[in-house]
């Protein structure tokens, strides 16, 4: 009965707690996401958004609770290339001597042999992924020469090349140009139709209303979780942001 229940969820996080050397970053957090769902992760800086991502990718160990990815452990999900992580632009060294092609190829490393020799299928996957984010003209550009939007698309291509069924995106819309923003929103619709599950953190409330079926409001723990139309209310947002009213945060229109 339990296992059947798990199978319905791509991501099933139950009461997870994370601490960094005794400092609690996240406690009793729950999240259940099905294939084809897009969920927004909203919270203040330091509310545990990145920690939540880190727990799902296995980059930090949870001290309590349970995470099931497709009904399996996080370790299995890593081995199966189930989860792709698209970092914030600030989270990567843009001066690293590496080309667009090499970054996207890193999406294939997990399914290659120990020497990471690309096979024909890997090369094709990388080509397709770069094509989908419209960077074919910049194949061999060092990432240091790209704009913020192009760099963001490079890491999206890496996630596409990885062929993951779950995408975790940290601030996908911050610091990108209009063209990239449009391309990312088109990709989201395609991903949704392909049955991928997307969890994205964002500061922009308009994006939440536009793309997200579900929203997870957190402040060290879950403040509210559910359908965007029901949960994304001024009251909940105010609670999430420590009593500051949404009018002040996003202007009177929202």
């Amino acid at each position, binding site marked *: 009965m339990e296992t059947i229940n798990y199978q319905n969820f791509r991501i099933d996080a139950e009461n997870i707690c994370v601490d960094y*050397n005794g400092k609690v970053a996240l406690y009793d957090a729950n999240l259940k996401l099905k294939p084809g769902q897009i969920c927004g992760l909203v919270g203040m800086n330091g509310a545990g958004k990145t920690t939540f991502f*880190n727990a799902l*990718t*296995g*980059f930090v160990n949870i001290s309590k609770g349970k995470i099931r990815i497709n009904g399996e452990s996080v*370790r299995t999900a*890593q*081995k*199966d*290339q189930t*989860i*792709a*992580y698209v*970092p914030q632009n600030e*989270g*990567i*060294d843009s001066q*690293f*001597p*590496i*080309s667009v092609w*090499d970054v996207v190829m*890193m*999406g294939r*490393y*997990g399914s290659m042999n*120990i*020497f*990471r020799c690309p096979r024909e299928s890997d090369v094709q996957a990388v080509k397709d992924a770069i094509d989908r984010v419209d960077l074919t003209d910049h194949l061999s550009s*060092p990432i*240091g*020469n790209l704009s913020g939007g192009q760099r963001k698309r490079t890491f999206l291509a*890496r996630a596409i090349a*990885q062929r993951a069924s779950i995408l975790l995106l940290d601030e996908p819309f911050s610091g990108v140009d209009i063209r990239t923003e449009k391309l990312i929103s088109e990709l989201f619709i395609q991903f949704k139709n392909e049955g991928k599950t997307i969890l994205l953190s964002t500061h922009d409330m308009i994006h939440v209303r536009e793309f997200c079926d579900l929203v997870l409001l957190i402040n060290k723990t879950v403040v509210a979780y559910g359908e965007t139309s029901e949960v994304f209310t001024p009251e909940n947002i105010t609670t999430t942001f420590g009593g500051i009213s949404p009018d002040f945060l996003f202007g009177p229109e929202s």
Partner: protein
Amino acid sequence: MELCSFLTLDSFITDPLTHDFMRKALLMSSLVAAVCGFLSSFLTLKGWALMGDAVSHSVMPGVVVAYALGLPFSLGAFIFGVGSVALIGFIKQKSRVKEDTVIGLVFTGFFALGIVLVSKIKSNIDLHSILFGSPLGISLSDVKQTIFISLLVVILLSIFRKDLMLYCFDPRHAKTVGINVFFLHYLLLTCLSLAAVVGLQSVGIILVVAMLITPGATAYLLTDKFDNMTVISVLSAIISSLIGIYVSFWFDLETGGSIVLAQTFIFLFAFLFAPRYGIFKLKKLFAGYK
């Protein structure tokens, strides 16, 4: 007589080669430079310059103890090199002291322990050669050990080159796709300890960190491709070693210092004249906007 002999470039280069110790020094130093240069690309990109300094100083007591017990000095160096990093991590985690402070106090502690041990343990350890290197006086057993360690490090770095590059660039992605980040972290540390051991024969413990960061920094200014960076780093390290040894031979200078100084000059040259990232190029870049 000396003045006359290097009037021609030919004899400047060939005369020293008639000495057995010079041929050995040139070969071994080139090998050591190549190993350290290779590793240097990873360390500069990972931002481990301070870590390199810490590990290279911390191997000191290990080398002394190993000599005293008749064990291979690489073993002692390895234990203390990795041990120092573990200790740094432990103290950082368990106290509120900042990381650079912890690194500084741990490696100086180890280094001091090494110096005290040398003075206490009566043996044929030459403190001067450990501190400042002695590429001209390298023994046959040292030669064998150096070749073995160098090959080991080069093979390890070659096999895991792409994984290590990913680890330096984006460890979170590495973890997400199931690559063993813990293993890569300690692999890089192991290579660092081993390279420090072979490097200290060339330039000594105090300057070995230069072998581990300067070639990589030079290469970083000259290219935007990781593979090219590795090649440039290795070449600049080898060339510096050759220049340093020749110069020290003809002008009777400290060999280790000469090698490192040659590396520094190559770096300065790149800093000034690098086609893309040199400061003269950057000045030109903005000249057009005036």
